[in-house]
């Protein structure tokens, strides 16, 4: 047993070692930087992943603009479908120190050759730096209050252009202006702008306000950027940019102390909270010119490049080949449709996936859209995918341009496939798995079919029953609790039930009025009256002699007349029941009436 287990472990270890050595030949190097747009002083995380070489020590090139402040590393082993992959991850935390675009590359020396990762560009902007298209300073004027005095604090939305083209990036910058002598403490945004007619992306902005001195209408102010957005107009015509509102806690600086114009505004030396908001702005969006527009242009606006690759150069007929097209650059990548493909008739397009990635920088929105297209050749042969074109309007050049790739080629081998007449032109990846299968067949004939009917949830009766049920349960439960409590108090319980039970016996006696059984009639009368008294006095009914009963009733405050009536009825009942005295119907009716009156008197007097 031990030998067998040991052999098994040895085989597994051998298999792992063999697989590991096989995997070692395929070293993969990847570089990732997050985020890709930062301000000077902000930190980024740089990750280098080396797969297939456990001892590798990669280098980072092009990181002069960053100061590395922390390093971490870790490794992981994955086994997928029997293939082992070992990956080491080196993570650097770096602080951006210089503005500009840094292009980072990871390198790894292995067996005399140098592996290089795909380069990654990181945009580093200076905090508080003016936008690419500086706002026209003359457009900002000082607002005044009702007395004509310059407002000590206000906000403006400043646009990079007032007549953008459809799809062209327009930058709006919200800036707050504060008079010299006023010290801002903290702020919060309480009105988020709405952009009608635009696709908007927020650009990176520092979390703190970096004030700089400006002079507007000969008045010294301090201004800071609060928010910045990249806006892409979707249609020609009027479009509007909403206002941004903020609350700011402010106080006077020592320099501003005693400055009269502010006394009414900042009359507290401890400061106060001030609300301000920018005014909404309208812009006119121009249509893109028709002159020079390529026939295959659809909606692309920006600056783009395109690349394409096939995941293999040779495949079998009926087997998938993945074509990956990457369009990247600056602009609204969402508007870029999948480039048109001039494919051979024998190539079918299966799944198409489009994955857009948008990274908002300080000034521009850099974007990337990856199209993954599965192609399947139905016949053997050499196939060429002609150059892929991505036409776009370039706002910088004010003209149309076309980004292209080189043609791609692959070979399909094997037998030609039979046509699938029922299949639509484009199938998904799952369809590839389902090929060769078919629909579950139709159901057979039936004598009758299920008719359409209203679901239960649409029937009010169902909800009424379900709603009434807890009320019923509650009602019954309350009743049960009440009965339980009464039973717990036996004396009270008997007293409350006394009259009801006596009446019940009287009813039974009444039923015997017309019958010849006089003794039974009087027995019921006797039980009704005595039972009532026993219940009221909480004692056993048969335990009384007439004298004892009279004494107890006298103690309970019952009048002598009532006690006398009781004695008379008792005596009459005894004579009929035990002495065989005759009692016709008239006499019994009279006795019944007296018993009823007696019970009423007893009830009244005992209650009292």
């Amino acid at each position, binding site marked *: 047993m031990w030998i067998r287990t040991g052999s098994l472990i040895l085989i597994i270890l051998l298999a792992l070692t063999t697989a590991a050595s096989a995997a070692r030949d395929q070293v993969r190097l990847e570089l990732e930087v997050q985020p890709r747009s930062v301000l000077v002083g902000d930190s980024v995380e740089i990750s280098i992943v080396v797969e297939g070489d456990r001892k590798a020590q990669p280098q980072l090139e092009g990181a002069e603009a960053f100061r590395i402040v922390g390093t971490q590393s870790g490794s992981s082993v994955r086994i997928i479908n029997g293939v082992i992959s070992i990956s080491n991850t080196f993570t650097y935390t770096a602080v951006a120190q210089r503005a500009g675009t840094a292009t980072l590359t990871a390198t790894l020396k292995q067996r005399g050759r140098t592996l290089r990762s795909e380069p990654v560009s990181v945009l580093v902007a200076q905090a508080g730096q003016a936008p690419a298209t500086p706002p026209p300073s003359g457009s900002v004027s000082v607002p005044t209050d009702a007395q004509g005095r310059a407002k000590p604090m206000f906000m403006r939305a400043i646009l990079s252009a007032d007549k953008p083209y459809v799809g062209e990036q327009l930058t709006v910058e919200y800036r707050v202006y504060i008079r010299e002598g006023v010290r801002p403490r903290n702020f919060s945004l309480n009105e988020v702008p709405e952009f009608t007619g635009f696709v908007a992306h927020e650009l990176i902005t520092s979390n703190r306000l970096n004030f700089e001195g400006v002079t507007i209408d000969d008045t010294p102010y301090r201004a800071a950027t609060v928010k910045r957005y990249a806006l892409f107009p979707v*249609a020609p015509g009027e479009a509007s940019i909403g206002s941004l509102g903020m609350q700011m806690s402010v106080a006077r600086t020592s320099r501003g102390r005693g400055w009269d114009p502010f006394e009414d505004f900042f009359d507290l030396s401890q400061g106060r909270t001030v609300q301000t908001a920018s005014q909404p702005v309208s812009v006119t969006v121009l249509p893109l010119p028709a002159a020079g527009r390529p026939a295959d242009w659809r909606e692309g606006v920006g600056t783009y490049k395109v690349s394409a690759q096939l995941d293999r150069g040779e495949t079998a007929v009926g087997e998938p080949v993945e074509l990956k097209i990457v369009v990247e650059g600056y602009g609204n990548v969402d508007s870029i449709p999948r480039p048109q493909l001039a494919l051979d008739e024998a190539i079918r397009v299966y*799944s*198409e*996936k489009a994955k857009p990635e948008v990274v908002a920088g300080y000034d521009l929105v850099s974007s990337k859209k990856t199209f993954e297209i599965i192609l399947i050749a139905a016949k053997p042969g050499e196939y060429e995918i002609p150059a892929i074109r991505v036409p776009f309007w370039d706002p910088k050049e004010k003209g149309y341009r076309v980004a292209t790739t080189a043609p791609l080629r692959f070979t399909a081998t094997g037998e030609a496939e039979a046509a699938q007449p*029922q*299949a*639509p*032109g*484009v*199938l*998904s990846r*799952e*369809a590839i*798995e*389902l090929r060769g*299968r*078919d*629909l*579950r*067949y*139709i*159901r*057979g*004939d*039936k*004598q*009758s*079919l*299920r*008719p*359409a*009917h*209203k*679901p*239960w*949830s*649409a029937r009010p009766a*169902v909800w009424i029953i*379900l709603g009434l*049920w*807890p009320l*019923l*349960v509650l009602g*019954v*439960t309350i009743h*049960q*609790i009440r009965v*339980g409590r009464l039973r717990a108090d036996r004396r009270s319980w008997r007293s409350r039930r006394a009259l009801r039970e006596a009446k019940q016996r009287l009813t039974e006696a009444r039923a015997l009025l017309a019958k010849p059984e006089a003794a039974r009639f009087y027995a019921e009368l006797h039980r009704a009256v005595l039972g009532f008294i026993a219940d009221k006095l909480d004692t056993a009914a048969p335990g009384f002699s007439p004298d004892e009963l009279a004494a107890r009733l006298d103690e309970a405050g019952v009048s002598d007349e009532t006690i006398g009536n009781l004695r008379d009825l008792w005596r009459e009942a005894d004579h009929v029941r035990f002495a065989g005295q005759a009692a016709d119907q008239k006499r019994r009716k009279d006795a019944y009436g007296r018993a009823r009156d007696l019970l009423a008197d007893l009830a009244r007097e005992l209650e009292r």
Partner: protein
Amino acid sequence: MKRLWLPLLLLTLLAAPAWADVAADHYNRGNKLFSDGQYAEALAAYQAALDSGADDAAVYLNFGNAAFRLNEVGLAIWAYEMGLRIEPRNEDLRFNLRYAGAFMRDEMPPADEVFILRVGRALAGHFTADEALAGAAAGWLLCGLAVLLWGPWRRFRWRVIALGVLGALLLAFFAPIAAANVHRQAVLDRAVVVADEVVVRTGPAETAKEAFTVHGGMRLELIETRDDYARVRIPTGFEGWLPTETYRALRRDTD
């Protein structure tokens, strides 16, 4: 009026099998046509069965198969979805829906990432709204019954507790499913695109700007209808207007 009551009842009882026969006749005729490869005629026969008042999963399955054979992927998906509304655990319908879905040109967004939501959705998909409501109602009634019996059946306390626990379990299991399914059936207006390709516009007019394009089989949520256009939302959250003739609602008039 009292005298009319009995004849009317008899007439209703006699008429019910009559329409049932008509719907079944259409359905059986459709099966014959399908077997002969006359899919268009079979589709019309199944449609006639539905128009005759049938709301049977078998009709929807066969309708979907006929539509699929005619490359009407959207119509087939609509039919399978309608069938699953009645028999959510029907394996044939589930497979055919998956199969037809594989032929859709639009990729549906991935399922919920959160495990609990994924499990909840899968569970809800195994019951009709009526089944879930019946389960929740049974739990509700059992819980109340346990409360009622708690006093009088004190001698059988453990049996009453067991009854209450069973009711609570039924209620806890079925109530969320019933809520989700009843909401989906009664509140959400869902539909499926049955046209091969539809341009979704920014407004309810042919002249409105094109927003995006959807293809047969795309699930829609109807927001509002204006004239011959409906404002819809697709699973990715985008909204727009499309002609009402290009989709079919996932509900019957009786729902």
